[in-house]
């Protein structure tokens, strides 16, 4: 029951299509690397924040596992990328987990109640395990990658087991309804976040179009008018503005 691994056909088909795109497996590994790194940070924060001594060690081990997964995925992404410097840049981009919304400043443990937190771990680890099973099957000719997925799978079984055990304890303690609601909410938020990510990308596309129009339509005429007179100052420029202390409240 715990390891309920039945990946849907749609997920299998989508993954197969994604992995057919040249360079995509490496980029996917780079993305996973950041996702796991983000999870590691969240689990470290949980280790620090939890008031339950018995959970600290488990959260810490979980964090170390996620750190290890991040490193494994990063190494594999670089190995698979060949000459594609974009994948390496993606792996080394320390801002990726913020710019892609993988992690916010407020730690997950602070955002969620205890039941929601364990529901989050359980649902995401279960989905992750399913996904990695599919990828492992798709990469069966790549022994290093399949071995990596096997190792990660072993760790995930621990994460699934302990989070499920916590949820079971809560159910036994009369909180079954709360647990069901938290699992539903986690799944709902996952779908909602996917929709938001898609919307954000659409918004970025639209704003890009509008900014291009503004660039040529508004900036263009000014550029043409000013071109004859404007020059960059060279060498020392003697400062002529008012002392900054006099307009400390001004942003300009």
């Amino acid at each position, binding site marked *: 029951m715990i390891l309920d691994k039945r990946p849907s056909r749609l997920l299998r088909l989508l993954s197969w299509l994604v992995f057919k795109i040249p360079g995509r497996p490496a980029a996917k590994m780079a993305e996973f690397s950041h996702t796991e790194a983000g999870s590691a940070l969240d689990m470290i924060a949980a280790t620090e924040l939890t008031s339950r001594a018995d959970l600290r060690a488990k959260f810490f081990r979980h964090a170390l596992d996620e750190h290890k997964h991040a490193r494994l995925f990063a190494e594999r992404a670089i190995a698979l990328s060949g000459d594609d410097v974009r994948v390496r*840049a993606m792996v080394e981009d320390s801002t990726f987990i913020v710019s892609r919304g993988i992690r916010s*400043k407020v730690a997950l443990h602070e955002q969620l109640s205890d039941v929601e937190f364990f529901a989050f771990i359980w649902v995401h680890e279960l989905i992750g395990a399913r996904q990695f099973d599919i990828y492992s099957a798709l990469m069966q000719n790549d022994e290093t990658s399949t071995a990596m997925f096997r190792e990660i799978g072993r760790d995930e079984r621990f994460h699934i087991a302990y989070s499920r055990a916590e949820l079971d304890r809560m159910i036994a303690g009369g909180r079954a309804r709360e647990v069901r609601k938290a699992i539903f909410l986690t799944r709902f938020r996952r779908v909602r976040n996917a929709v938001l990510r898609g919307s954000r990308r659409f918004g970025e596309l639209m704003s890009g179009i509008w900014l291009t129009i503004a660039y040529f339509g508004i900036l263009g005429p000014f550029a043409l008018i000013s071109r004859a007179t404007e020059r960059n100052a060279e060498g020392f420029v003697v400062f002529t503005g008012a002392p900054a202390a006099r307009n400390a409240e001004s942003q300009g």
Partner: protein
Amino acid sequence: MTYILGISALYHDSAAALVHDGTVVAASSEERFSRIKHDASLPVLAARWCIAQAGLAPQDLDYVVYYEKPLRKFERLMLNHVRQFPRGVASFRRSMKVWLTEKLWVRDNLANALGVPASKILFSDHHLSHAASAFYCSPFEEAAVLTVDGVGEHATTGLFRGSRAGLERLAEIHFPHSIGLIYSVFTSFLGFQVNDGEYKVMGMAAYGQPRYKDKVERILRIRSDGSFDVDTSYVAYHYSAEESYNRRFVELFGEPRKPGAPFDPADPRARNYADIAASVQAVTEDCVVSLARELRRRTGLDDLCMAGGVALNGVANYQVLRRGGFRRLFVHPAAGDAGGAVGAALWAWHEVLGGARSPALVSPGLGQSWSDGQTSQLLRDLHLRHTPLEGDAMIDRAAEDVADGKIIGWFQGGFEWGPRALGHRSILADARQHGMNARINAKVKFREPFRPFAPSVLAGAEQRYFSLPDGADLTCPWMLLVAPVTDCGHDRLPATTHVDGSARVHIVSRDASPVYARLLERFGEASGDPVLLNTSFNLKGEPIVASPLDALATFEKTDLDVLYLGSFRIENFASRRNVHA
């Protein structure tokens, strides 16, 4: 009782600093808390910690000072887009998305994030913040101040005179003429990440000869008045969102180095890249020295303060001391943008409020600390076997471990302000052992083998190992000066002597870091050399550890032999963990 919170953010390395009646009482980069290297977002976590550290609530702050003028910066950006039309369309799209959604609303965003009224938020000026960070943290009553970085609002370089009357701005050099940006162009060309890999260029330069200096001087030209300009026909940073150099640059220097490519000094192609690194380093040094000489001529003062990202270049700092004409040099420990947080707050205290002169900065440990009680509880909860060691017993044992050839993690007191590990969050080893640097690189740091490790030396013993120029005593405590190693140093310290016979010297005094100084003293008594190899306690690509938990996680991920966490010694981590699912 006046409390001022300084903030630098939204470019790279955001930070917060709290100044109480002119004294810096807390300061931290955001990355130490968020664990995201070079975190550029509003430093909410660092600011909250600074406020809590002083036992305050946000409403107790008298002012919050942002380190630059966003509207003036926006003006420069728009003027540049007008000048570069139509080739800057991609850059325009990218920058406007950030500016229109975030950077233009700094006042409101800060007020909301920190819970302070918008009326309490003031704005300094980028280079003025850098200048204030250097001058008001220095021990000088009067000094020349030089700020050099990528770019602020318009300025990339600032010349100031600091005195009892405040900071007087003498001259500036404006964008796109920038030493910092040119150094970053070469950083990118040599296959490193901009705003992160500049140290690697400096490390690689030691393996080369400046054979291409004339070519670099075609791009970065020193003028007769001591200033410089950039021939922008070789670079792309002023119009491109993706590239910092263009085809003409590649025609001049050849194909760029592939990121992550191995560096073997015996390979002629690798040596060629090292020669390019050496060339840009040499021209950078000449430019900064030329600026310093001009500043000396204009002010007639003996002492110099420096800040801005270029002031982190320890090799150039050595040349400034040797050839710049000044008697003494002080460089702000967080010379890059993070330091703007301290500078902005100190500027407001001195120049807006007219406060009394700040004391000189002595201790680097302005960050968060943890008590032994907190650490002990954590170790117990994590089921980690540990040995409590009190006072001298801990120092003695650590000195023994290092002498035995062990690589130790060293976590003591508040974490350091600035990008350097200065004996509060450090990895330490015996600098006398041949091959120790290679061992640390392979087992612990996993970083490029051409990057050197720094030596920490007990104050008073430095002249035995290093040829320090006069006036270096204020720069070396912050590890911001690279100096030649003496014959004795060369013999005694093989693990910290770079290939060109230099070292990034860190002088440790009892006033600045008492526990670390005691360790050096003890190690010196036992071995005859009060020197340790000191590198930052982090892994490649990660911020330096902040909390005991960060330290334990890093300890687990590496082959460090021992960890000293406050008064606790933890050994052979993996075998001592006992976690049951």
